[in-house]
């Protein structure tokens, strides 16, 4: 019953309740504000430029362990202290056994907190940046989230510790493959992360069909050249078309054209043609002729020679299509090679060949550009009880020996130090033929957009690209729409800061590509 009449006493009581509630709310609200962001503070070591006394130890692992001892001696940490590592379920197998060993060696208590959904790791990380609970000490995240995390004030600058402990990442016989070491750790010229993975895209094809003499003859007759692994994208398109046989249930290619990775195929062509995502004013260059041609080629390729789930499926489609034999050629992360050679999951064991990603000819020089997609790297929370101890763990985990053991276990982390490419364990895990190809591709690897707001740039790009692949838009229009969105993002995030970051980021690209840019006058340095 409506209570217009009943209400006098009630109204005052309600008002009282409301007022009390608001007062309490105000009080509680003020407690919601945690301590203000501390000004970015470098760890307590001497200023850069002055010589840093290096920690004793013959290997990175030894130095890390000595670091822990020193920290304990200085009373900064003690036995049994708990440190939490946030990572993806896919790395469970790489990390957890290592944690056990580390805890045994150091007496500390490092534990793993895993997440099943990658996107949720980003959410948790960003939430941590806001709430600062200190419930995570180490993050193992996508490489291109480092910018967001650094700008949000969440992670610490590790550069001085690199100098103090020397993880042997960018020099020495144990160095990472370059340029992977650079773009998995640097942001605006400082080390905010340490790479723990190699996600250079790798391309695989059906060796058996290539070695078949009938096929070879037919190919020669048709194209007037020998049947061999294509070096340029043009040759690639012809090669794929040749092996595209829908009536036999095998399509030419599987390259991603779906919601999250549609950019990979396009970017590989675009960059190898000498394109770049932005110019030095952060204006997008993707609408250039190189960009449009690259997209037109990709759209034709996918629409004519691939299964429809290249557009509608998710990233695991490559891992089912290729091993079951329904595509001739597929590319994905290096793990696809493992998958295709495993008798438990693959019908084409022994028929798998690995190839270098094709490129574009420029005045007689072949420039390849291989997308390095996603990839994981370690970063340290500013709110950890001892960021330096966390750093020691990271250095130890990625060390030449410990890292090898970790990568050899089945998980999403892949091989990143150069000497490992010759290790018998790795040859067994990846297949002897594949390793040199992976190494070659890694040397030509270029990073995802790693600026602040990277997720947004990439997502909006993919959105339009996928529409082009689905036939909902023309390629030129898709790129133009993406470029417009990019401009808005840049303006919102602060153009000057983005320019500074981009100028550093493009220096992490492989040398041949940078040379090509200089030659074409896109960048001066």
């Amino acid at each position, binding site marked *: *019953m*409506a209570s217009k009449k*009943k209400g006098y*006493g*009630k109204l005052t*009581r309600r008002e009282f*309740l409301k007022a009390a*509630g608001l007062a*309490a*709310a105000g009080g*509680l*609200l003020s407690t*919601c*504000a945690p301590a*203000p*962001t501390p000004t970015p503070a470098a760890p307590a070591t001497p200023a850069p430029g002055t010589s840093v006394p290096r920690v004793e130890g013959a290997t990175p692992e030894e130095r890390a362990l000595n670091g822990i001892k020193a920290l304990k001696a200085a009373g900064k940490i003690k036995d049994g202290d708990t440190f939490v590592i946030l990572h993806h379920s896919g790395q469970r197998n790489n990390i957890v056994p290592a944690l056990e060993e580390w805890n045994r060696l150091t007496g500390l208590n490092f534990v793993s907190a895993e997440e099943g959904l990658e*996107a949720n790791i*980003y*959410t948790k990380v*960003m939430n941590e*940046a*806001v709430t600062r609970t200190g419930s995570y000490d180490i993050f193992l995240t996508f490489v291109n989230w480092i*910018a*967001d995390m650094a*700008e*949000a*004030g969440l992670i610490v600058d590790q550069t001085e510790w690199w100098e103090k402990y020397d993880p042997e990442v960018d020099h020495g016989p144990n160095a990472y493959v370059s340029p992977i070491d650079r773009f998995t750790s640097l942001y605006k010229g400082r080390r905010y992360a340490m790479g723990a993975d190699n996600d250079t895209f790798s391309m695989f094809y059906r060796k058996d069909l290539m070695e078949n003499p009938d096929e070879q003859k037919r190919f020669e007759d048709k194209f007037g050249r020998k049947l061999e692994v294509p070096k340029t994208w043009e040759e690639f398109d012809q090669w794929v078309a040749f092996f595209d046989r829908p009536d036999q249930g095998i399509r030419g290619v599987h390259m991603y054209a*779906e*919601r*999250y990775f549609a950019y990979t195929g396009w970017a590989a062509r675009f960059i190898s043609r000498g394109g770049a995502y932005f110019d030095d004013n952060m204006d997008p260059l993707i609408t250039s002729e190189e960009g449009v041609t690259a997209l037109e080629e990709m759209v034709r390729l996918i629409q004519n020679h691939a*299964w*429809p*789930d290249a*557009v*509608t*499926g*998710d990233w695991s489609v490559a891992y089912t299509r290729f091993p079951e034999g329904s595509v001739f050629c597929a590319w994905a992360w290096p793990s696809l090679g493992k998958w295709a050679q495993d008798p438990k999951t693959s019908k084409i064991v022994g028929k798998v060949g690995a190839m270098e990603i094709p490129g574009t000819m420029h005045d007689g020089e072949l420039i390849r550009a291989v997308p390095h997609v996603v990839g994981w790297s370690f970063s340290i929370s500013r709110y950890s009880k001892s960021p330096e101890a966390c750093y020691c763990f990271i250095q130890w985990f990625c060390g030449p020996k410990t890292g090898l053991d970790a990568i050899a276990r089945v998980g999403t982390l892949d091989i990143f130090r150069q000497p490992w490419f010759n290790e018998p364990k790795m040859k067994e895990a990846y297949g002897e033929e594949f390793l040199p190809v992976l190494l070659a591709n890694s040397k030509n690897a270029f990073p995802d957009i790693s600026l*602040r*707001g990277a*997720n*947004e740039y990439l*997502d909006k790009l993919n*959105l*339009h690209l*996928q*529409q082009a*692949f*689905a036939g*909902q838009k023309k390629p030129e229009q898709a790129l133009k729409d993406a470029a417009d969105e990019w401009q808005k993002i840049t303006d919102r*995030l*602060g153009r000057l800061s983005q320019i500074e970051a981009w100028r550093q980021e493009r220096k992490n690209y492989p040398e041949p590509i940078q040379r090509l840019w200089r030659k074409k006058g896109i960048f001066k340095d």
Partner: protein
Amino acid sequence: MRFPIQWKLKWAEERWMGQLLILPMQLLIWFVLIIPMLIVIYLSLVSWQPIMGVDWWQAPFAGLSNYVQAVQDPRFLTAMGRTIGLVLVAVSLEFLLGLALALFFHQQEFPGKRIFASILLYPMMLPWVVVGLCFYLLFLDKGPVNYILISLFGPSASVQWYQNPILALMTIALADIWQWTPFMFLVIYSGLGALPPEPVEAAMTLGANRWEIFRYIVFPMLKPVILIALIIRTLEAFKIFDLVYIMTGGGPGTSTESLSLYLYRTGFIYGQLSYAAAMALLVLILVALVARLAVRPLEREL
């Protein structure tokens, strides 16, 4: 009118008791919801992103610009339209099916009725993620549904369910209907059971047939229950997220993106929490207005 003193006292007692009864609920809502709500409203009036490195209470004031942007955002508007369409289709079908099943159950007696009821309620009991996964797998290019179609009608019958936005939305609607018809069934069935049998018996003795009894007696008495079920279900359906996320991710492009999915993307992938807050508040206002209109007849029933 004059009221005897005893009646006045009784009213006072009732009022007091009424306040006491709603107190726990009010406390919970005030302390768990109101404060975050205030923060949301605040966020919608500033322009804040965590990656700007500024604390949220120091974010620059933005007035109503987030709201203005939202109202002109085509992606927001189409997501809203799409979600409304999806909700209308899914909920009406859920209602009709649930009603039919409840009537069927109410009128028929047969052995194994309880087991049948358990079977019917099962879809609600599976966790969302599993339901989404299941339907996703069912409608894959090389999934069981296409397999059946091919076996019955030949290879060209295979449908690219996820490539065409309309078909993709249909599969999502199907998953939703499958999962939530049991809810409608449950509520309406309970409602039917609580109805007094006398009016029905009286009508039967007067010679009314089944349809007339339903239309003129049962249905009017059921109206409050039906309305509640519809309102609750519609509100929930409007927030559809899990199914869309798992089955299509909103793709191709944004052609199956639901409102909640777009809010999620904006807030958690792009990190634009202020903008997401503003959009969410717009949604709240819109839905509240519509719901207010829907709830009026319910209040009149009392």
